Structure formats: structure tokens, C-alpha cells
């Protein structure tokens, strides 16, 4: 992991946020840390945010904390735009900690940093394990601002979903976008011992979905050095000219990096987010290995 001028992170109540944050501040030695959090989870994240503040004091990094809201994505985008315009300079190196950052925020931050002209690195820390359930109360899926692609008026939709552990979020995306074809990416080679069973459930559900439209499954490894970009790229290349492609990452966070990179290469593709209103207090446990790279 490189030294950085700034770190942008998103506070969570999970142990891996706190331990990962310490590690990246220690390694990157930033002059500035920008920490976002959702006001709806302010109580849950309070201890970890205080810890982050103290970590920054110890490392003499300027600490800026900013509140966002689950309910106002447009305000969040404008908040991030305004913050980064002030805090980040062109050409600087910024590390974005993806560990507990919602994918919509990840993509908003990447986009802004690209606009400003920064060098973007990322870090991600896995947990030791996951809870029985991760999220509930799905909200309406939405396309990401400024990353919503270029829609051709006559083309049908091809939906790319990099599956996670919540089967219903995959179904929800399919029900919402009603694609002609869904390309379902299943995480392989994962250290989480429950991964294979969960991906099997995704595949079984996919076979049931296929009565409502075509579903094709493929395997990828989001923890590969390219975050699975090449494999996903191979899947979509045959549909770039014929379909409007909408892509969503529900699996390991590094897959959000690969989809962002693919969007940058193929600006007509759209990125979509499937929000949830409620997250589990026991979302994850423990602290696992870190993954680092550049966007």
C-alpha cells in the first residue's frame, strides 16, 4: 500500500472498520482523513468514529467528519462534490477505504476524484466471517448519478449482477430492470467457508428466475489482482453493441472497482445500486486480510 495525501473512509460499527482504519492510517500517513457516516446509524458508529478521531490525532492527520443520509442520495452526491472540491487537490494521491463504504458512495467518490484528477488507490479489509443475515428492507434500485450510461432507444437491457449473499437483492434487480438477459457472476475461490453454499443458493434461485427471462451464470474472483475485471469484460463484450448494459455489484467490494473500471472503458454502460434500509448489527465479525490496489 502506498503513502497517500488523503484517505476517504466510511464509518461502520464493525470491528474490521476500526482495525482496518488504523492500519491504513499507519501505512498511508495521510495529511488528511475524510470520514463519512450515515446519520441513521450515528449511534451504532459513534464509538468507531471516536476511535478514528483519536487515531488521526496520534498520527497528526487532519480529521474531517461528514454526515450523510440513507434517504437523500442527491444531497449526498452534492455533499461529496463540495467536500472533495475543497479538500482534495489535482494530482494528489487518495486512498479510498472500501471496507464498509456503500457501493453508491464508492462510485460517487471515484467519479469525483477522477473529475478532480487524482490518483486513486483503494483498500479493503475482509471480515473473519459474516452474520446470518446482512440487510433487509430493500429499497428501489437506482442508477448512479453521472454513471447511468448512454441508453439506446431501441436496445433491450442486459443486466450484469455480481452476486452477493442476499439472494433477494439479485431478484429485486431483475424484477426492477426486467432485462432480456441477466449475466450473474458468482464469486469463486473464496476463503469464507460459507461462500460455496451461498453461491449454490444463488445459482438455484437463478434457475428459477430463468422462467422469467434468460439467466447465464459465470464465475469470477473479485479478490484477483484485477478484481475480476477481465472476466466481467469478456461477459459483456458480446452485448455492448446490441444491448443497454446495466451493472451492479452485490458481492465482494473489490468487484465495485472492476465495474467502475469497465464503465470508464465503456461509458455507455450504467452502474446500478440496490439499497437496503436496514443493516444487521451482526453484519460481520473479526478482521481478515487486506486487499489493496489502484483504480
Amino acid at each position, binding site marked *: 500500500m502506498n503513502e497517500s495525501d488523503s484517505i476517504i473512509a466510511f464509518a461502520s460499527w464493525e470491528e474490521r472498520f476500526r482495525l482496518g482504519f488504523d492500519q491504513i492510517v499507519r501505512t498511508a500517513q495521510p495529511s488528511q482523513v475524510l470520514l463519512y457516516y450515515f446519520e441513521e446509524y450515528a449511534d451504532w458508529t459513534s464509538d468507531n468514529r471516536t476511535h478514528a478521531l483519536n487515531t488521526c490525532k496520534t498520527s497528526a492527520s487532519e480529521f474531517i467528519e461528514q454526515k450523510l443520509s440513507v434517504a437523500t*442520495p*442527491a444531497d449526498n*452526491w*452534492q455533499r461529496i*462534490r463540495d467536500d472533495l472540491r475543497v479538500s482534495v487537490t489535482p494530482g494528489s494521491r487518495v486512498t479510498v477505504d472500501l471496507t464498509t463504504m456503500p457501493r453508491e458512495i464508492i462510485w460517487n467518490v471515484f*467519479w*469525483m476524484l*477522477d*473529475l478532480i484528477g487524482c490518483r486513486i488507490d483503494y483498500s479493503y479489509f475482509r471480515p473473519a466471517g459474516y452474520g446470518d443475515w446482512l*440487510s*433487509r*428492507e*430493500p*429499497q*428501489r*434500485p*437506482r*442508477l448512479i*448519478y*453521472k*454513471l*447511468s*450510461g*448512454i*441508453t*439506446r*432507444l*431501441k436496445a*433491450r*437491457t442486459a443486466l450484469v449482477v455480481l452476486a452477493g449473499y*442476499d439472494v*433477494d*437483492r439479485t*431478484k*429485486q434487480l431483475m424484477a426492477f*430492470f*426486467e432485462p*432480456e438477459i441477466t449475466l450473474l457472476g458468482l464469486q469463486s475461490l473464496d476463503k469464507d467457508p460459507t461462500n460455496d453454499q451461498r453461491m449454490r443458493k444463488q445459482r438455484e434461485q437463478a434457475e428459477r428466475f430463468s*422462467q*422469467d*427471462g434468460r439467466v447465464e451464470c459465470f464465475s469470477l474472483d473479485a479478490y484477483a489482482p484485477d478484481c475480476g475485471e477481465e472476466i466481467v469484460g469478456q461477459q459483456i463484450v458480446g452485448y455492448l453493441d446490441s444491448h*443497454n448494459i*446495466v451493472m451492479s455489484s452485490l458481492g465482494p467490494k473489490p468487484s465495485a472497482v472492476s465495474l467502475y473500471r469497465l464503465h470508464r472503458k465503456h*461509458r455507455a454502460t*450504467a452502474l446500478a445500486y440496490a439499497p437496503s*434500509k*436496514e443493516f444487521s448489527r451482526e453484519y460481520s465479525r473479526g478482521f481478515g486480510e487486506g486487499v489493496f490496489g489502484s483504480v
Partner: protein
Amino acid sequence: MTSRKNPFEYLGANDLPPDMILDYYVEDFNYSRFIQSNRNVLLVGERGCGKSMTLLYNSWAIQQRKAELDGHAPSLDLIGIYVPCNTPLTHKGEYQLCDRFQAQVISEHHLVLSIAFRIAETLARIPNALDGADVDRLRDKIEFVFAKEMPSGASLFDGLMEFVERESLETQRRINDPKTAEVAYNDTYTFSSLVAPLLGCARLMPALARSHFMLLIDDAHDLNEHQLRSLNSWIAYRDHSLFSFKVALASIGKASLRTSSGGSILEGHDYTRLNMVQPFHNEASDFGRFAGQMIARRLDKCGIEATPDTFFPVSPQLLADLKKSEETVRAEAIAKYGDDPRKVSDHVYKYKRAHYFRSRSTKANRPEYSGFDTLVFLSTGVIRNLLQPCYWMYDKMLSLSGQAEGVQGPIRGIPPSIQTEIILDRSRSLWDWLRDELGQSIEGCSSEDAGRCHQLLDQLATHFRERLLHHKSEPRAVSFTISGRTDDLMSKLNHLFRILREAQLLYIRSGSAKDKGRREWYYIPNRMLWPERGLDPHGQHARVSLSAAELWAAASENRPIAVRDEAAELKGLFDE
């Protein structure tokens, strides 16, 4: 020749090839002929009730193919222009980063370009549309409308399509420009500046001088608030001679009826409403006849020589048991009412099936569920709910025919045992989904809401079963009205009903009340829930009056809903 292709495909209409739409579509008993008019029409109904199918059937492309197969020239009186709204273009949210005026302008611009593209695409398909037309004059007029030159070299309509798409792509590129955080686009079009004049240009073609253009807007509930208001404003136009709108919506409650100027469109005055999900009370109702025609057509297209009733036969044992119950109940009725044939017949209707369920041994397995009319009742008036279990049954038969030696050839029918097996399996799956997955599947449904929904339906099932087994009056009622409404209780209940409707576990209809002939809302849980609970999905054309308080108690505290005696129930029928 008989095909083993599943005749009960229930893919969305947009995924069906044109010939299959023509094969499967039934024009009768479903108000579809209302579409073929100058009226503005709102088609309202949940997923799977046939809205898209109806619009697509009435589009020019399908009507042209129909005329071709029928061996005559297609009529140009009514030209249907199909405009799908469930596209990534509709779902773009960048307008939310602008001020309200810019948001309205950009939103209308996107929608108007989509409509213009579909107009051009449709005109391009009409053979000889340009016969006798002054093409140069048309080109000049179109360029005047767009205030830009059309691409040279291309035919008029191909050039128009290319031009409109280029405008749309350019708008999106500017708005999504990665080099600026600004979201703005100034060269926008409106309905008045683009679509209306474009249709006016079409009328300059002699072949289309008297054509009426039907703008078939599908999935309008996907439009954003600004687009919906714009659409409503266009619906409010006084002159329907040139164009009209046929708009498909999941429900009217979701979509505002407000216009851009703050007024509202009015049913009857501005539009006709077609409720695509129809009440189904018996085989002779419109939906019953529609379902019968639809299944018969599908069987025929697959070369299966069977009627719906013979393909889905009732179990002989069930028929025999029902016959015995009918004889017993008839004897009771004659003893009670003497020679009054109407009272005897009413009594048999009410109690024949209830007697069957009541006289079954407590140690018996679940009742049998078979017969085409049972499937139609289970659908609760939604076409996709009818096709799904049929699909699974046929699929099971295909699997079995591959396994058993000597059992080959076409599927000639679904044995009652298979029908019962699939129906019970589907019913069980529905309860499992309700209990375990509702909260993760429906937008805006918290885990508490999901729990309450499950408790409500569970207590309703228990209540209906108690009625079926013991109640003297209306034993087979499986729908309810709500009495004792208060704002607070109805606000809580309506929140749950919204979730259940979206999950297609509950349907809400308007019907005539017993009290002073007024109209009232009544609530019908999805009848596929009942087989798992041993209930009769045939139900009865009667509604139980339940108070809002007891419904909320059932939902929030899992409290049983009491079955009142007959006298109390009669009193309840007149409660407000």
C-alpha cells in the same frame, strides 16, 4: 403435429415474438376493444394481469402481422405506437441534481424523444406510407420542427429515427459528461414542440390523412414525478382527433393524477379506466370465460387436442364426494324450504362444498385440488397466477414422461394427483416465502412489517377455516370488508396492505355493499394461500365484515379473529 413445448409459458409480453403474441392473445371478455378508440384509457392492474400484452397486441407491428396472416391489407384508421417506459433512460436520476425547473425540462425532453423515436420507427414500418406524399415538403417541415437539418441520404423515416436517437444520445452524453459536475442541457424538446407537430406531419401523407395515432405508454409507473405530470397534462388535451393515450399502470394510487400546472385529470372526463384484474366469482364470469378461451387457444397452438376441462380433469373421487355432499345438502334444503327451487339452489350453492370439507375425516390427508375451474379460482383473477401452476404441472409431466419406461409421446392431460401435488407445493412455497423472504423482497417492508403481514394472513386463514368447518352462514367466504374504520387503524393497515398488494398476496376490489346499495372496497387474499391451510379456493360470492381493530390486533399481536355467531354477523354487515 404435437409439440412438447410448454404451452403455458408466462414470460413477459415483451419477450414474446410477434406470432406468439397473436397466438396467445384473447380479445374477448377483457375490455381490450376499448383500446381501439379515440379515448384516453388507463389500464390498471398488478404485474401479470396482461397490460403489456394488451398494448403490444394493439401496436401497429402486431396488427400488421395479424393482417398479413389473415390475408388482407392492414387498416390505417388506428395506428398503435408502443412506447415502453421500463428502460434505463427512464431510470436515470441526474435530474435530481438540478433545480426543479431544469428537472422538469430534462425529464420531459427524455420522454418526448422516446415517443418521437417510436413514432418514426412505426411510420417506417407502414408500407406505402409515403405514396403520393410531397417528401421534400415533409422533410422541410420536420427540419422546421427540430430546428435542425435531417441527415442526408437516408430515407425520411430512417433519417428521422437516426436524428431522434442522436439527440437522445447527445443529451445523455452532455448530462453525464465526466469533465464537469454540472448537470444541464438546454436544447430540449417538449410534447408541444416535437410530438404533436410530428404527428401533424404524418397526417400530411395522403395514406395517413385520416389516421388516429394511439400512443401506447407501457409501465408508466416507472416514470419520474415530472414525467408523470407531463403525461397527465397531455392526457388532459381537449382534442383527441389526432392522438390519444393508452397508459398501463400498476395502480392508480401509485401514480399521481396531477398535471404540470397543478390540476388533476378526471376519470370519465379525461380518461376511461380499465381495471385489468377482474373479480372472478364463477365460471360464467368474464374472467372465467376469458381464462377458458386463453388456455384452449394455447393447447390448440401446441397441437394438444383437449379442452381446458379435459386437460385439467377433476379427480373422480372428488367428483364422487362432491356429488354425495350435494345430495345430502339438497335433501336438507328440501326439508327446510320445500318446493322453492331458488332457495334450494342457493342453499346447495352455499353449502355443497362446505359439506365436503366438513365431512372429511380429521385423519384424512389434505383435500384434493384439481380441475380447471379450481385453477381459475386459485389465480384470483390474474392471468400470470393461472399460467404459473399450469406451467409447473406441464413441466412435471415432461419430467415424468422422460423417466417412466414406455411413457412417451405428447402430454394429453395433467392427472388430478399431479395437479394436487403442484398446487399444494406452490401453496406451501407461498407461505414459506411470506414468512421468510417478504421483508427482503418488497421495497419499504421492514422486518416488523413482514412479521405483521404474516400474522395477519395466518389469522385470516385460521378464521376462514373456522368458518368453513363450523359457520352456519357464508361458510366459504374468503374475502373481507372492513368495518369500524378509524384514521389511525387504517393508516397502519393500509401500510401492510400496500406491501401485500405489491407482493401479490392481496387484491383490493370495489363492489356493491349490502348496505343501501353503496360501493365498498373488499379485500381478497391470494387464493393460492388456501390449499396449504385446507381451505376451499372456490370461495363464495360473499364477504366477511371484519373490524379494523381486530385486523390490526391480528397483525400486531397475532390475536385470533373471532368467528361471530350469525346474529352478531348480520349486525356487523351494517357497521360503518
